[in-house]
């Protein structure tokens, strides 16, 4: 049986792992390779690295650390951050990343998803979506969320974009629910459940994990394939081995 995945997310800025609250006020958490190894040892199923400053600054992800991570890590990892072309994606994949995730650049030019899927296969192509509920009750997409001064609210509805991304060749969707991010009150189960209904590829929940029950709820109630979290793992508030034992006892298929 396919396991549900626990995915520590490492936001990378200037070559260090950082974490902000609701995408603001970043604090340095540690060195990339050290944290990657720590999570591998603890039983993380996958890692995601977001170069959070790459897109707002209009540059692609720095590849040096991608190769350093690839050399030491024996679990899959995905790299995101300002990948704007097939050539840039190829460089990241050749450096050893297993998947690439596109977010703001795909909003700038949606055909990028088609091009990446054609070049590498849909299994390499993750589309990250930053989503926030507006006052009219609609979830809409946000762009350039790595820098609060550059973040833009788009007219594009989250669910419409999710469907389009899949049609264009997304092999996985990571839904960052910005309203719940960093505050540890639980994943946005309402939004994730609605997203699940229109998401036919693997769906990864992001934003809001605080206690083990939140992971269980995301897997059992919103039926997501993976759950991404940062601060609760970085701070040690939740240890992955204990979390997995808890989830298995709750009937969730996990890799032990």
């Amino acid at each position, binding site marked *: 049986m396919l396991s549900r995945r626990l995915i520590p997310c490492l936001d990378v800025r200037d070559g260090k792992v950082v974490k902000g609250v609701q995408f603001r006020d970043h604090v340095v958490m540690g060195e990339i390779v050290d944290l990657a190894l720590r999570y591998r040892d603890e039983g993380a199923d996958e890692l995601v690295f977001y170069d959070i400053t790459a897109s707002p600054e209009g540059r692609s992800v720095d590849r040096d650390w991608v*190769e350093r991570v690839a050399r030491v890590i024996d679990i899959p990892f995905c790299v995101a951050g300002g990948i704007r072309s097939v050539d840039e994606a190829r460089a990241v994949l050749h450096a050893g990343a297993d998947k690439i995730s596109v977010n703001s650049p795909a909003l700038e030019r949606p055909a990028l998803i088609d091009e990446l899927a054609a070049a590498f296969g*849909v299994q390499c192509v993750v589309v990250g979506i930053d989503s926030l509920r507006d006052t009219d009750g609609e979830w809409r997409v946000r762009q350039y969320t790595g820098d609060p001064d550059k973040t833009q609210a788009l007219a594009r509805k989250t669910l419409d974009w999710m469907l389009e991304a899949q049609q264009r060749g997304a092999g996985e969707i990571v839904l960052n629910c910005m309203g719940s991010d960093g505050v540890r009150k639980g994943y946005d189960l309402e939004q994730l459940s609605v997203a699940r209904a229109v998401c036919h590829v*693997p769906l990864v929940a992001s934003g809001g994990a605080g206690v083990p029950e939140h992971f269980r709820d995301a897997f059992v109630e919103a039926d997501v394939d993976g759950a991404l979290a940062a601060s609760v793992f970085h701070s040690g508030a939740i240890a992955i081995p204990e979390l997995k034992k808890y989830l298995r006892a709750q009937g969730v298929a996990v890799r032990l």
Partner: protein
Amino acid sequence: MSVVLVDAGGTNIGSVRYALQRLGVDAELTADAETIRAADKVILPGVGAAGPGMARLCELGLVDVMRALTQPVLGVCLGMQLLCTDSEEGHTECLGVIPGSVRRFTEAPGIRVPHMGWNQLVARQSHPLIAGLGYDDSAYFVHSYAVPAGEYSLATADFGGDFSAVIARDNFHGMQFHPERSAAVGARLLKNFLSL
């Protein structure tokens, strides 16, 4: 021992190479027929689609070279599929050294394609390639096409039905998952291959 990685253009070549380095083996990346023929072990990695994968082997003049190899050969992910008879993906004729047709997974409730993540391996036969494989051992898969379970399946996994996770016939072997990304289980299976 000389191990070569066939450079068929797959993007996971770096990862496979690093995994072998962690096991103390420096594999040469090559598309040269003579180097491949002379190697003790040959690994065919691959990420991407079957059609372009076979087209690349054709361009490199490696189709007959690969078919005629007598030393242990390991195909990984798409590389494993290329060892089989044919693939539904782009209606591609493959190398045909392991009988079996590659089919797309059928989407169903809870079966989301691509099959992406860790899935349990179930041993179906005793074979040195899967020596030490334990109950509850999982490997990391990322693919949309697979070979249904059959007489050449050494281990299977279940995703809307059993499919071949590890396959072998004579000197040709395949792993549908990514051993280079399957933690200790993957390292164990790669080590088994190097010991064949």
